[in-house]
């Protein structure tokens, strides 16, 4: 048991002159120029995507409200006109085809 704990200690204290292998490794990774470049790229990507989202939102609002004002009444009115035309056609064909009804005596 004691040797077990010793082993552990030995594992970490094997390079006792330095800070520790894990700390050294992580420091090496975080201080490298590659990490800096990646961090900068990630920041830029976040900034650009935020701006893109905002401008897409603005464009969507603009397009949506303009569509609502200009196109929706047009669609509704054209639909009504078509319905009115169909009704009229139906009525005309009905009146045209049936013979005049004489009142029952």
């Amino acid at each position: 048991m004691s040797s077990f704990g010793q082993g552990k200690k030995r594992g970490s204290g094997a390079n006792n002159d330095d800070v520790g292998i894990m700390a050294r490794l992580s420091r090496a990774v975080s201080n490298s120029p590659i990490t800096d470049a990646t961090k900068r790229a990630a920041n830029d990507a976040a900034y650009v995507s935020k701006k893109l989202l905002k401008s897409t939102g603005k464009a969507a609002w603009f397009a949506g409200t303009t569509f609502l004002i200009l196109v929706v009444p047009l669609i509704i009115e054209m639909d009504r006109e078509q319905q009115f035309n169909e009704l009229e056609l139906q009525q005309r064909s009905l009146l045209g085809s049936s013979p005049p009804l004489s009142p029952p005596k």
Partner: protein
Amino acid sequence: MAGLVPPGTTTIPADASKAAHTKAEEKTDYMNLPCPIPFEELHREALMSLKPETFEGLRFDFTKGLNQKFSLSHSVFMGPTELPSQSAETIKIPTAHYEFGANFIDPNLMLIGRMLTDGRLNARVKWDLTDNLSVKANAQLTNEPHMSHGMVNFDYKGKDYRSQLQIGNGSLFGASYIQSVTPHLSLAGEIFWTGQHLKSGIGYAARYETDKMVAAGQVASTGMVALSYVQKVSEKVSLASDFMYNYMIGDVTASVGYDYILRQCRLRGKIDSNGCTAAYLEERLNMGLNFILSAEIDHKKKDYKFGFGLTVG
């Protein structure tokens, strides 16, 4: 001679005679040109689509005819009115007024008067003295000093030209002349002079119209250039576009609009290069009963105006 003519061209003489016949029909008779439209209605078709009378609030108009020539009108308006402000902010004040009006309409004489509850009086007179000469006058009187104005126009209509002389208060003088040059093209010129601001200007205009389209252009020495084009796509639909440029100020505006005239309704919509869209719908609910919806969205100034109304008679 006939033997020398190759067989492929034997049909040409017949076609040439037919073409000569149609050319004779189409040859314009420069002595019988149609009378042009009045100068102030140069951009009439474009303005109908692109400048609908949008309003904000409630509007109710009731016109009752008492006679064949005489009618009274009652009108109620409730809604915010914009005050002209120097800053970019739009200042709106809720107002409400009732307007009483009387119209007398005769073939030769037309009198229109409107009296509002906020103390304003509008009057318009149109008098056809003879077939060719007509006098128009309009006046707007208010309670506030120096805000009333009036104007008189004398119009003379010739065979293929029209001329107009305009005199307004505040020593405003204007004259315009429009002449038909071909059956489709008419050219016009105008000059004006204001005594109050000591400004004078001269302008030229041209209008080309056919059955399917109307194109009009106007240039003035005040720096305004206005071009408009209207195409009648079908008998129900017409599309219009307009370009206005002020070369003194450098202000440019282009707009595109449509005008749908259906049986039950009339729908007009337009979109601007200033980020302003407007729509105006007049729907016929019943005989003599019209329902009006108006919308105007200005995305740049973030100003939204919606109105609804009813017109009876």
